[in-house]
């Protein structure tokens, strides 16, 4: 019986078809915890800077954590990690659903894909064994059909599938990996990495046992946690609306990404909100594996031009991406846009940014209609939105320019359009305006995978609890979203909480936003679940180690302090009048960055982790490599 960990990874070489099982030793597991941590460490070791992300030298690491597949509510997650073809730095994307647990039940903590298959293939993994099968018949099938067809073909409704869509096969850089139809590891182009290896899908079935070392104690902890969750102040809203609550709440704060961040207030937010979706289209609540907070939903459009459109989802990012960000005020258009992205296998955040970027350039007369294939992409033009999604998927016409992401599009268009590209380190940012949430702004600026909020989620800045702010982070201001002081420390703290969530492979709703478990409780859980002993300090240290390995990885790829910033608009253009309390705000990034580097013990000038920090975390070989590569100068 495996307890928490399976102590085993599966290495599949797609070029020569060798399939090996490798034992994971306790030091590696304790130092890197699981999922994201295991993957980050392997990526650092096995994918050096010279590697082209879409060459066979790139590798994909698929990691699950010690809690994945257990009773822990929402421990359903799995990380896909590789060098990103979209950003050329750390590629890492995480999804929920049911795949993660199935990998554990099949006997693995990690799956490693290397090389490249000769022809389009899928991988079938069952109970400790794997084989590579032809996927010729799945060519160009959308993500839904691919998943359905594989289920039928294998004749087992309980298999779990990760699949790519036609966008990835066509070389779109922001294509993702999709599980359970719509559960997407969409960020940083992990779909394209699979496509570049000629892998259309990974199918997993696990019927092996997975237990807890001390079942009664573990069960008791879970029962207590279930209770705590049910009594949590956020429980009701989270089950009713999930992340879609953010459309109206961010709009009220004046920081909902609207018409490509030209404002933070969308006049028609009420008609595209989570509440509106719930009232008019929601059929029922949906949840990930063994989750007691069913924050997802199944919707159906029952009449009108989209009659019959139904699916799980959408989450906030898709909903706002195809409403406020591109100016669409009909929620049905937004639902259709998200559905197209899901089926084609596209990242909704990047896709919506590419389209919103095009719209702003068009409205500012920087792009002409002819350049955009005769479309008239004004904000709010749903037809243009859908046509652009289609064109991106097919890499045709103007879609080919957008299909490499917004930075590349700005470079190709020229005309000083780079300042309109809403990205950090090549990854397009989310649907909230950093000007109204400074801590999130900092988090996005320093995120190890580029412009992304899920690396830190410093929700504490909404708490408005000055006393707690002073106690926890040294400054009362840290508890207020429009203030700066203490945000460096807040972001460091929540970055490590996010690492914890991504390594245990549990949901950030519970671990980060609801703060259901601390490092101390995580240690207690792992001590009753696994065969190893953990202390709270060790886990915190491991989280910090993982942060530093990821930072070291992107530093080795050339990232420095100047890359830890936000798009021009957020630094220079104040939010307009209609944005309520957020009106007039910009982000003053530099002081927050100083505070953050100080908290991290990274070099103030370069943003490179200091030798002492690397040594303290036991990362001697990285310190050594940094000296050899002249990344750190020795006096």
């Amino acid at each position, binding site marked *: *019986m495996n307890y928490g960990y399976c102590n085993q990874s599966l290495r599949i070489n797609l070029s020569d078809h060798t399939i090996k099982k490798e034992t994971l030793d306790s030091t590696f597991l304790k130092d890197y915890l699981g999922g994201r941590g295991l993957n980050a460490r392997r990526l650092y070791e096995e994918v050096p800077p010279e590697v082209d992300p879409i060459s066979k030298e790139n590798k994909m690491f698929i990691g699950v954590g010690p809690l994945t*597949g*257990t*009773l822990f*509510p929402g421990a359903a997650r799995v990380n896909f990690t590789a060098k990103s073809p979209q950003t050329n730095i750390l590629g890492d994307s995480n999804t929920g659903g*049911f795949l993660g*647990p199935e990998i554990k*039940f099949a006997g693995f903590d990690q799956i490693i894909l290397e090389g490249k298959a000769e022809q389009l293939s899928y991988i079938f993994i069952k109970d400790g064994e794997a084989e590579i099968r032809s996927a010729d018949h799945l060519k160009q099938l959308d993500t*839904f059909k691919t*998943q*359905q067809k594989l289920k039928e073909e294998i004749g087992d*409704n309980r298999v779990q599938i990760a699949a790519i869509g036609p966008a990835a096969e066509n070389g779109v850089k922001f294509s993702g990996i999709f599980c*359970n*139809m719509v559960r997407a590891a969409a960020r940083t182009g992990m779909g394209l990495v699979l496509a570049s290896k000629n892998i259309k899908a990974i199918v997993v079935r*696990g*019927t*092996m*046992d*997975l*237990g*807890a070392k001390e*079942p009664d104690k573990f*069960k008791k902890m879970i029962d207590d946690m*279930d209770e705590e969750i049910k009594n949590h102040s956020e429980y009701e809203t989270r*089950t009713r609306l999930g992340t879609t609550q953010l459309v109206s709440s961010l709009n009220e704060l004046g920081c909902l990404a609207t018409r490509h961040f030209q404002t933070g207030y969308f006049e028609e937010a009420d008609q595209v909100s989570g509440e509106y979706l719930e009232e008019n289209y929601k*059929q*029922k*609540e*949906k*949840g*990930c*594996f*063994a*989750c*007691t*907070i*069913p924050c*997802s939903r*199944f919707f*159906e459009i029952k009449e009108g031009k989209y009659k019959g459109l*139904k*699916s*799980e989802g959408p989450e906030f990012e898709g909903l706002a991406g195809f409403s406020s960000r591109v100016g669409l005020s009909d929620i049905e258009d937004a639902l259709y846009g998200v559905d197209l992205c899901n089926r084609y296998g596209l990242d909704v955040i990047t896709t919506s940014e590419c389209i919103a970027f095009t719209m702003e350039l068009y409205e500012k007369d920087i792009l002409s209609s002819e350049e955009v294939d005769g479309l008239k992409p004004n904000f709010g033009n749903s037809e243009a939105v859908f046509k652009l999604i289609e064109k991106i998927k097919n890499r045709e016409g103007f879609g080919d320019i957008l299909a490499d992401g917004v930075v590349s599009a700005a470079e190709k268009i020229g005309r000083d359009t780079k300042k309109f590209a809403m990205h950090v380190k090549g990854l397009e940012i989310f649907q909230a305006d950093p000007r109204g949430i400074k801590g999130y702004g900092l988090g996005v600026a320093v995120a190890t995978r580029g412009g992304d909020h899920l690396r830190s989620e410093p929700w504490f800045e909404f708490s408005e609890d000055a006393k707690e702010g002073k106690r926890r982070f040294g400054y009362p201001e840290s508890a207020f979203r429009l203030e700066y002081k203490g945000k460096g420390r807040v972001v460091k703290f929540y970055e490590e909480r996010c690492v914890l969530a991504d390594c245990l492979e549990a949901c950030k709703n519970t671990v980060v936003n609801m703060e259901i478990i601390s490092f101390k409780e995580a240690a207690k859980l792992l001590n009753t679940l696994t065969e190893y002993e953990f202390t709270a300090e060790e886990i915190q240290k491991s989280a910090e180690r993982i942060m530093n390995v990821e930072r070291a990885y992107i530093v080795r790829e050339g990232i420095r302090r100047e890359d830890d910033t936000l798009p021009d608009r957020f630094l220079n253009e104040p939010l307009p009048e209609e944005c309520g309390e957020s009106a007039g705000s910009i982000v003053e990034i530099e002081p927050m960055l100083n505070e953050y580097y100080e908290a991290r013990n990274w070099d103030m000038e370069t943003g490179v982790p200091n030798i002492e920090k690397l040594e303290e975390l036991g990362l001697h070989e990285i310190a050594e490599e940094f000296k050899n590569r002249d990344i750190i100068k020795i006096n």
Partner: protein
Amino acid sequence: MFDLKIVVEKIKGFCDLPMEVGDYFTVRGGKIEIPEGKHMCLWAMQSLMPVLPAKQREISEENDWIPHTKRFICPDPNGGVVFRIDRINPKTGKPVADKDKIPPRIQVNSEVCTGCRACETVCAFVHNQTFNGEKSRIKVEKNEIEGKDNPFVCRQCGDAPCIKACPVEALSRDPITNAILVNDDKCIGCYKCAEACPFDAITFNENDVALICDLCEGDIECVKRCPTDALKFDNKGGQS
């Protein structure tokens, strides 16, 4: 055979006939008697009629619904006249005490099932100390395209066809919890019980031993862990 007294217990809407609370008629053997000077609604009576002979008879099957069902309502949606059927001992002329309520059962409402499989995980864990739902006695079938999630689990049928179908008497009913119990040593893995189960609720473990819900000796873990009311354990009808 019982005699019956059918009384108007309550009027939820309005009845212009009128029927009034307390009006009644009796059934003695094959005869219907209406008190002198009184009347009885034709529509209510015709809707009650089929059930009267059944209510007159003794039924030994303890889960049968007839002995526990007392109230019928007139078919006029605006009327809502509620009739209560009391069984009368023909020798003493006194009402017969009601039987105890039917035992509670697991009730499934797939309309609100989130498909999370928390029920499977906890079932497998408390019974077999494994998180893998393969060993669970409840299994959720999911259709992700249609958004349908359907938990399959034993409903503790009164007249359990699985018990009858078992050729080796491996199945029995727990007299206290009313759960169907599997004697693992006797079960020969012939699947006859699964074929007989009207709810497709029986699966088998890797040794071909039937997996049937044992109601966790009364403290039902899957019901406790269900985040919506897709699983309930009670004896009230209707879905939430």
